[in-house]
């Protein structure tokens, strides 16, 4: 007989890598929120976010920007007394919203990550100047100027790559990726 998967279970299933401690184990102690270095900038702090997931507030969770503010510092993860891998939960939520194509449009994070991924699939290596194109024109004038100033300084110091690096066995590498996601050319 078919059973309905709750939102909390669905998010729990995203935590393949986290070893499986479900968010329902949370006892709302607030250690994660208190320890998070980005907490002040989040619309919803981790403790509350976990409760919202557990309570099945899917729409509210999907509209939240907090997980795109996670810097993946894992301070919450190592301090959680219930063993919930909260930083991996944030990763899971990022993937979930990209998968559902539902995230606030003004966020730079999703576009930046997708540009990064495309770049690696193409060359096997990361190349900073290409990444800049994913966010540069979303910046305000002041930020744009300061970013350009930083890039100029890095260039003068010989710290900006002129040409993108690429791995040697790139064809093998691309075929390797296609064995994970089977797509044509």
């Amino acid at each position, binding site marked *: 007989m078919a059973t309905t998967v709750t939102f909390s279970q669905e998010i729990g299933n995203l935590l393949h890598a986290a070893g499986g401690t479900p968010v329902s184990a949370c006892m709302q102690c607030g250690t994660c929120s208190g320890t998070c270095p980005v907490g002040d900038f989040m619309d919803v702090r981790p403790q509350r976010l976990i409760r919202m997931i557990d309570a099945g507030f899917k729409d509210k969770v999907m509209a939240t920007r907090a997980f795109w503010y996670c810097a993946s510092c*894992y301070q919450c993860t190592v301090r959680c007394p219930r063993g919930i891998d909260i930083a991996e939960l944030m990763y899971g939520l990022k993937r979930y919203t990209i998968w559902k194509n539902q995230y606030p449009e003004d966020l730079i994070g999703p576009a*930046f990550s997708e540009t990064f991924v495309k770049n690696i699939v193409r060359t096997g*290596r990361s190349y*900073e100047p290409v990444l800049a194109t994913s966010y540069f024109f979303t910046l305000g004038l002041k930020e744009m100027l300061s970013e350009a100033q930083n890039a100029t300084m890095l260039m003068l110091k010989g*710290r*900006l790559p002129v040409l993108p*690096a690429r791995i040697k066995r790139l064809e093998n590498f691309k075929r390797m*990726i296609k*064995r994970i996601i089977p797509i044509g050319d």
Partner: protein
Amino acid sequence: MTKKTFAYFPGCSLEKMAESYHLSTVEIARVMGMELKELEDWNCCGATAYFHVDELLAHTLCARNLAMAEKEGLDLVAPCSGCYKNMHACNAHLKKDHDLADHINFALEEDNLRYDGKIKVHHLIEVFSEDLKEVKAKATNPLTGLKVAPYYGCQILRPRKFEHENVEEPRYFEDLMTAIGATPVDFLLRLRCCGAALIITNRQAALSMVRNLLQNALDSGADVIATACPLCQVNLECYQDQVNAEFGTKYSVPVFYFTQLMGLSMGIPAKRLGIGTEFLSPPAAMLAACRKAAAV
């Protein structure tokens, strides 16, 4: 003592943005009698961005590097904290989850590779910290009088939690700085995040995080911040102008890689350690060591 040999994974940042980290690493490894064999045809570890999009592919990227190191029969060492964390975590997953390992090995066949979980992954700083006696013996140009804020950051410690491991109160960075004659200061926020990629995706948050770290380093009396990660270096040093513009502050705190400080203490000329490619000049106590190293 037998010569230590590692498969060396420089990572994308060290190719250009953090070339000084690479140069100084190679120099001090030579002095320490350690062989770093650069992993042939290594690929990007995926950083944080790849894990935002697809976890399985992200692990596959890391696994390819692990497999190449295993083929050489060597443990892998990474100087970038992000690369280290990704490959260390991937290694743990593959050893634990055989279905995942089988799936990824099926993909690795395309590059004639296979990973059987036989190697370990180390961060560069661990490797040197394990041999403090040798570091001290080689530090013939000690950095006397240099007050260093040892900045661990996040990923060389977290999310790892080995049995009995103290991820909250480590001492090895301080001990390493002491071994090269410098004075480590009590840097309260030494494990606090620098903001990482938020410097691009959520600038306000990251600049505020950088400001807190700079202020705390100054409050602790440091002349210089020592780091073990290219992203920490860029955030803490290259964005000081932006922090100053945003908060009306006047920070000017030099940030160097621990390998550059080690290299100076070993009498290696500053230029060979990439010193001079930073935005900010070294403090007086470091300049004195630079002059002595150049005279050797």
